[in-house]
């Protein structure tokens, strides 16, 4: 193990290298680009030994990985925002075909107008594609999650999207422990060395089906997704045993009997945590790491407690006509329970930076009884 000061994007590249990825398809988009640049450097230096292919679009970037995964190879690509949107049908396809792909997404706002800031709407728009989605809070977690993601994807035959905040994490340097390849090989099996299909067993893969077969396939996928929680917890424990780092699907930090809970995802959690430690406040934080499948049980366990009086749902995205998307999901998870606490939304859509100052102002607004606080109005 060595420690390095690296960015979130570089952390991804290290994880891809350590995972002995066999095919990487590369296409630039801000703020993801340096993932692919770093991998290219590793490739040129002989540190990354798989195939590195410069493709002409995100559409091809993902379909290339789909092809590679058809063969049985471990494949990876990365994207952001419009790139992710351009891949959309393939994101569905990869999940429907049960391909164990891993893709990272450095969150970025969706145009128009052009905006490269760290709004999460890009990956949240892919919510229903059937991928497992993680949102990382720091650079170390990005590296570890990508490695976890390969193992998880291959065990449950479901692709994993690892998301993290553009610029706030993709371009921020942090001290990161980089595990040695030997350590990783204890956790992540070597990739296949033989094709997944057999030339002697002709098979028609992913061809036309009728509604009944499709429904059955959907049900199978649904049930497979339900098993992801247990599987992930197990893998996380295993990984923690090797690296001493653990990333629960939902993370709780702060006093146990806190009356006010902040709920958020991604790098904003780090800001909230540091805000707590600097001001010795009474609130606690619930960070949603796993967004798909949605950890309803965990959410209910932490949020539907009698001592909780208020929940502040912090979203860096917005679903027009509804509100923050994490907020929606939390509300849905709590739906039907009695004696629920008051719920307030703090919305930073457009990629606003959550600063301690902004948090203080927001808390004042909460006390004034606002239910939907637009952070932009507090600047």
């Amino acid at each position, binding site marked *: 193990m060595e420690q390095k000061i690296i960015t979130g994007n570089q952390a991804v590249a290290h994880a891809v290298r350590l995972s002995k990825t066999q095919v990487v398809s590369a296409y630039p988009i801000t703020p993801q680009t340096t993932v692919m640049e770093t991998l290219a450097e590793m490739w040129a230096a002989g540190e990354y030994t798989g195939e590195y292919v410069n493709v002409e679009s995100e559409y091809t970037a993902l379909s290339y990985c789909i092809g590679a995964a058809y063969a049985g190879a471990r494949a990876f690509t990365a994207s952001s925002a419009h790139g992710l949107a351009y891949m959309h049908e393939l994101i569905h396809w990869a999940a*429907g*075909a*049960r391909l164990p792909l891993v893709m990272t997404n450095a969150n970025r706002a969706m145009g128009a107008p052009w905006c490269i800031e760290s709004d999460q709407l890009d990956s949240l728009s892919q919510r229903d594609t059937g991928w497992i989605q993680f949102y990382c809070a720091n650079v170390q977690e990005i590296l570890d999650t990508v490695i976890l993601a390969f193992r998880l994807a291959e*065990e*449950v*035959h479901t692709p994993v999207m690892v998301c993290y905040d553009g610029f706030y994490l993709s371009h921020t340097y942090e001290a990161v422990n980089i595990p040695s390849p030997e350590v990783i090989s204890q956790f992540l099996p070597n990739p296949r060395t033989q094709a*997944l*299909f057999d030339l002697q*067993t*002709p*098979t*028609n*893969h*992913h*061809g036309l089906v009728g509604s009944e*077969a499709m429904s*059955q*396939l959907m*049900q*199978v996928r649904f*049930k*497979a997704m339900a098993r992801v929680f247990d599987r992930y917890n197990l893998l996380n424990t295993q990984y923690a045993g090797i690296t001493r780092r653990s990333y629960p699907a939902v993370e709780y930090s702060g006093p146990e009997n806190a009356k006010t809970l902040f709920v958020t995802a991604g790098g904003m959690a780090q800001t909230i945590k540091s805000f707590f430690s600097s001001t010795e406040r009474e609130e606690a934080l619930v960070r949603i790491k796993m967004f798909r499948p949605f950890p309803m049980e965990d959410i209910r366990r932490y949020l539907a407690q009698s001592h909780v009086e208020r929940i502040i749902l912090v979203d860096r995205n917005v679903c027009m006509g509804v509100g923050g998307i994490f907020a929606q999901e939390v509300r849905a998870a709590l739906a039907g329970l009695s004696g629920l606490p008051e719920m307030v939304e703090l919305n930073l859509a457009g990629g606003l930076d959550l600063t301690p100052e902004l948090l203080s102002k927001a808390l004042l607004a909460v006390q004034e009884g606002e239910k939907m606080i637009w952070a932009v109005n507090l600047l």
Partner: protein
Amino acid sequence: MLPRCSETVAIPYKIGSGTVPVLVNKTGDWRFLTPSRHEKNAPCASACPLHSGISIWIDRVKEGDWQGAWAAVSRYNPFPAITGHVCYHFCENDCSRNHYDQSIAVGELEKEIGLWRLRKFASGEKLPVGRKLPIRVAVVGSGPAGLACAYYLAMLGLEVTVLEKQPVAGGMLALGIPEYRLPRNVLEQELAVLRSLGVVFRNGAELGRNITLAQLREDYQAVFLATGAGKEKKLNVPGEENPGVIGALEYLAMVHLGKKLPDFHSILVVGGGNAAVDAACTARMNGARVALAYRRTRDVMPAHDDEVRSAEEAGVQFLFQVQPDKIYSKSGTQTVVLSRTQSSRRGERISTVPNSSFNLACDLVIVATGQDADLSIAGEESLSFNGQSLITNLPGVFAGGDLISGPATVAAAIGAGREAARAMAAYLEIDQSTPDGPIIASIYNDSIPVAEYETLNPSIFPKQGRAVSPETEAGRCLSCGRCNRCGVCWVFCPDMAVAGVEFDINLDYCKGCGICAKECPGGVLEMGVIDSGTENHHR
């Protein structure tokens, strides 16, 4: 894909993958029209006076199976080496490939088989005769009809005697056809083959002169009369009886028998048939200046065009639309008075142009204006025949060849001999089948339609002229009207519904698209409504 971990949901197949062969879809249900084979007569066989199963033996040549080719061809024609040389090959005129590139060289292939057979014979290989029957039959006349009949009867195991009035056997093959058309060693070898089969030749035996039909009927259980049409027609002009005027057959026979003739410097041949041209060419080759006078135009000459062309090349001078009026003979020189005629079409009455006569002097006038059968052969017996069939009014007496038809072709004569043998075998109640197939091919059925030319696919059948190698040349044959398992239907079936060595159509899957029928080069496959259990869409 492989089964997913612990996903054992009860679905009938692996997730997202099809492994069950699509053969369970019986797409034959879709079919409205069904392809089936309808064999037809080939244009070549239809045109052939022998109705030879040309495509059948060409198939064997294609495979390099000369023994098989001989076996197949000999059921139609025991003398392919002879017809290969002398036949005008009407088959080639009607060959479907004429519509595309060039006809198949049927004559050459036929000749190759015949010569192959003669070489085999020369090396000591006899024809197998399966049996010997104590039945005596006579064939009168050793021309192509008589020889063919003798061959088949001998192959049937009969004791055959051929009676020939001339000192040599072969009839027109020996005495009429010029040597440049038929090398006499070919004929001699064929005669040797016949002798090896036990056929006995009696030369100098002339029916009606030193033997009688009544005697033959007594001595033999069946008789075939094939005395030909050797009675030459007259010109019916004054001066014809002069010794300087002779018939074409008489002239040719003298030449071929090696009789010493005076040196004729200039010869006029009168007539437009093959005999006229043969005589003219023979005379030319013997060193004379030769003119041929024909009363109509070149394009309606009865002689075969190839013959006329080679006569022209040999330097025979042609005079068209002239006819002789008179012949004067004085001290070895014949002066023929000729008039110009107006008629050009055959069958039209000839009228002369007034005051158009002119004189032509020559050493010899050869008359070749046709021949008739000599019916005096019957002697005391009242023989009659109808020109249609080979039987006569006398039980056990059969007749055929030029005797019945008038002057025709060698092929037609061989065909007549073959059919006579068939009729005689039937009369004598002799079974002609053998373990290797029949000795004589089955009767040609002219009620079956003749296959028409089908547009060819140049990718499968490249446009190309005749090939040098017999096997390659045989490969050009389209086998019109007869399925030769070429496999075009197999190649062009989008449904893999044609399979097996026989190219049977699998009606379970045939959707009835019709490509096979459209592309079938022989025109054998046809689409039609066939009432079968698989066609259930009409329910």
